[in-house]
């Protein structure tokens, strides 16, 4: 599954809905993923509409700390919010986050 098969809107919708991101203001493009009342990751939303470009897709995948497959699953609906939370909690326990 290529990361480039999705649009910016699909990616943005998946990130906001599943990661329950909190934005400081309505115009803000940066949002925090929070767990247990602490800011864990910061995600930058892509600008504009249309297909995802390769550099943007790679940059956001890196920010959300998912493999290519997990990232595609997150956008396609296979990976739910609770699954994402479990992945991040596991990474926090292991040490990288």
């Amino acid at each position, binding site marked *: *599954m*290529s*990361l*480039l098969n999705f649009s910016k809107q699909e990616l943005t919708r998946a990130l906001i809905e599943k990661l329950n991101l909190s934005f*400081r203001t309505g115009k803000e493009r*940066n949002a925090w993923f929070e*767990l247990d*009342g*602490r*800011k*864990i*990751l*910061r995600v*930058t939303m*892509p*600008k504009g509409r249309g297909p995802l*470009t*390769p*550099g*943007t*897709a*790679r*940059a956001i995948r*890196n*920010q959300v700390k998912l493999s*290519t497959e997990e990232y595609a699953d997150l956008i396609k609906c296979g990976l739910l919010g609770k699954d994402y939370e479990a992945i991040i909690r596991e990474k*926090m326990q292991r040490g990288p*986050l």
Partner: protein
Amino acid sequence: MGGRRPFPTISFKSKTALDDLTDERIQSVLMRSVVVHVLKFGTEETEPAFVRSVPIHDLNTAALDLAEPIQVEIEHYADEVISKVPELDLWASEPTESEALLSIKKAISDLWEELRDEPESKLGALPRMWKRILGKKVRTRVPA
């Protein structure tokens, strides 16, 4: 004189690059091009065509200055230029390199503004590290 003309001969005085190629060499070149092709088209994500790293010395804001340069990675793709500070998980996408550099400067100052007054108890390990890094590199500009 009705004698026959001698059959023309052509002499090659200089060797061409092809003359030096052995079968093994040809095989190795072919194999390498196949591998390059597979890497290029077989990966999930398209790789940048060109990557370089540049230091930035200023954040382009009236309020903030840099105490020391920050290294920014620039990735050139067909339709966009990505600027990144991997250590801070920051990126920006713009059509040109100079715009991408300006955008990453804004991203750095935005991140510092968000983290500066945030208590460490409210931050995970990564944002705590970003705050420590930026605390060393960013300083408030003293009015002239």
